[in-house]
């Protein structure tokens, strides 16, 4: 999944808008992956979402977005939600996709996969116009995954593997994935790093699940929270939990910074003030704004977040011990 460049330093409001867009794109990508995953599952074809594969002979690992395990062949779909305008950057992006055109080892299998770029349908005409300048891979385009029926189409080249190919397109070269909208919302994360406000909203929700009515404070155990989230949101595969501890830690840091929780790392107790965040309107907007204000425009906090010192409340002021 492509993300906006992390090196740009636009104005604060643009940064907030960019982060909000990232949150939406992350959620859309999960809808797309889940649609493909569930559709192929119904046809007894396994799709591995973000599996770790080895490039044979080079002794290095890579994580393609989707690996389709057909009966007679394998296909790798590398997802790009957007592509750079700059020709050099575009060439580099396409090169990373073409790198999969070699022997790959995954689990016990070694194979030469078919490789395709998975991109939004609206990008294909622009890409096809550059066919003479670049070595384009096979393109599998998709209609917006938030539509009821998400359509895949093989736009450039073919997917030769008999089983894989047959599943990807009908006689018109299209595949309509009328995936039940409900099932896909089971999935909340992919391996690619989620925007922290996105994770934070869900972590806050999962903490809130433990509260009783009228309770103003709730305490949950860190380990139980990880377990609970991963139980409710099923993993794509055994090796990848939906919510890793690293992601949870980032959300916890952010929630601490907002003053919504206290975290005792020794006891693993997270105490949440559940009256917080109840009047913020759209939570994703609020969290994106606060995130950019607290952390600046970098997409992730450094190890020690740059905490902005806030003025003490009157209560805190009077509780202070004299120096």
């Amino acid at each position, binding site marked *: 999944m492509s993300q906006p460049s992390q090196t740009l330093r636009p104005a604060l409001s643009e940064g907030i808008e960019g982060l909000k867009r990232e*949150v*939406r794109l992350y*959620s*859309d990508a999960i*809808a797309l992956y889940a649609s493909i995953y569930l559709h192929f599952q119904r046809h007894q074809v396994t799709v591995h979402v973000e599996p770790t594969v080895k490039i044979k002979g080079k002794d290095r690992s890579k994580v393609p977005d989707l690996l389709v395990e057909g009966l007679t062949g394998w296909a790798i779909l590398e997802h790009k939600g957007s592509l750079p305008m700059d020709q050099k950057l575009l060439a580099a992006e396409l090169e990373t996709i073409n790198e999969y055109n070699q022997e790959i080892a995954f689990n016990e299998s070694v194979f030469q996969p078919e490789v395709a770029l998975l991109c939004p349908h609206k990008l294909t005409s622009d890409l096809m116009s550059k066919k003479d300048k670049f070595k384009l891979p096979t393109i599998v385009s998709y209609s*917006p995954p*938030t*539509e*009821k029926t998400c359509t895949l189409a093989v736009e450039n080249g073919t997917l030769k593997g008999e089983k894989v190919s047959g599943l990807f397109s009908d006689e018109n070269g299209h595949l309509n994935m009328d995936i*039940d*909208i*409900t*099932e896909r*919302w*089971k999935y909340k994360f992919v391996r690619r790093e989620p925007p922290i406000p*996105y994770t934070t*909203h*869900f972590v*806050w*929700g*999962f903490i*809130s*699940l*433990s*509260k*009783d*009515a*009228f309770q103003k404070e*709730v305490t949950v155990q860190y380990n139980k929270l990880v377990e*609970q989230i991963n*139980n*409710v949101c*099923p993993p794509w595969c055994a090796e990848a939990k939906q919510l890793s501890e690293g992601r949870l830690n980032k959300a916890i840091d952010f929630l601490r910074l907002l003053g919504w929780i206290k975290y005792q790392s020794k006891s693993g107790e997270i105490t949440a003030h*559940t009256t917080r*965040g*109840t009047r*913020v*309107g*759209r*939570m*994703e907007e609020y*969290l994106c704004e606060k995130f950019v204000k607290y952390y600046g425009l970098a997409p992730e906090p450094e190890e020690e977040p740059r905490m902005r010192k806030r003025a003490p409340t009157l209560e805190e002021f009077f509780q202070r011990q004299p120096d």
Partner: protein
Amino acid sequence: MELFSDARSDSFQDFIMELAPNYASGIAPPLHLFVAFPEIDLSNLPNVAVSAGVAADVKRLDGELCDLVVRLRKRRASAKLRVSDSNWMIMVSSPESPVTSGEVFEKWLDSMHPKLVSAFFDSRQVLDLVDSFGNLEMPPEISVSEFVLREYPKGPTHKTWEKGKPYDRSIIEKQIKENNAALDSIKFRIFADRDSFECRVSRNGHMVFYEGSISQFMSLVVSPMAEIAKVNYDFFRDRERDFVQGEIVLNEIRLKTEKDIPTRHLERLGDAICNAFVGAVLHSGNPMLYVNAIDRLDGSMFDICAYPDEITIIPYSKATPSSLISLYMLITEVAPLTRRMEGTLAQN
């Protein structure tokens, strides 16, 4: 005459019969009646009320009947509470300030969410009730005096019924469609041969009896509406996602719309959910609205996925009926032409 098919004690019927003469002669104040479904024991009511920031004192009388006194900030109101296996029924007949007492109980019940779940009705169910009088052996004359539409975010609009004009469901349905509003309440009078009565039925379960035959009101309005309320309540129970043999089973709620919801209304629905719940809009309504919402009070959590022709609510591992009903009521306020689909994905 038996007022309720499930009535086990005479104390409640005696109480109603005591009230009857004053209502028949039109000298009694309006009787406010609420049906609620408890998620607590009666003995816990006072403690739970304190936790909710209100107060409640209960004194058991004969059989199913209790005296109930509630306090809401500085306001106080008293009522009779009938506790049965299927529901709690609160009856407020206060000669001092009947309207205020009714309001106090309405707000008190709101404060008790999610431990007491108020009855609710769809616009269609309220109109079905009025229609049902036409199916009686001796169909009475029905006279509507007013109905109230509730449009989001504008709020309620009172519509006066032309005097002498016979009741016609299609007139109200047309107004519902034209105004994109829910039927909030309807006030009507039933003229039968010997008995007549006047009452109001609201979608939030608040029923008001003004005058006439209280026994007719109880048997023709309250009893059937209490049964409908129970069916409605049961629809929203046990909707948490289950874990069966390591698999997650969703117990989602599906709503179909009679008319496509315009994109701007889908966006409005997102904002409405975020105002009433802690909500994050992860896709904002073109063509799909996708919101994750957390109940502020009890922490229930759901995904809401709305297309112009279909809305799906997907609960997480905690989803109280009260919370789901609040969400459903909100959805049907913003998108009134929405109908619940029976069953879940697994059953359809």
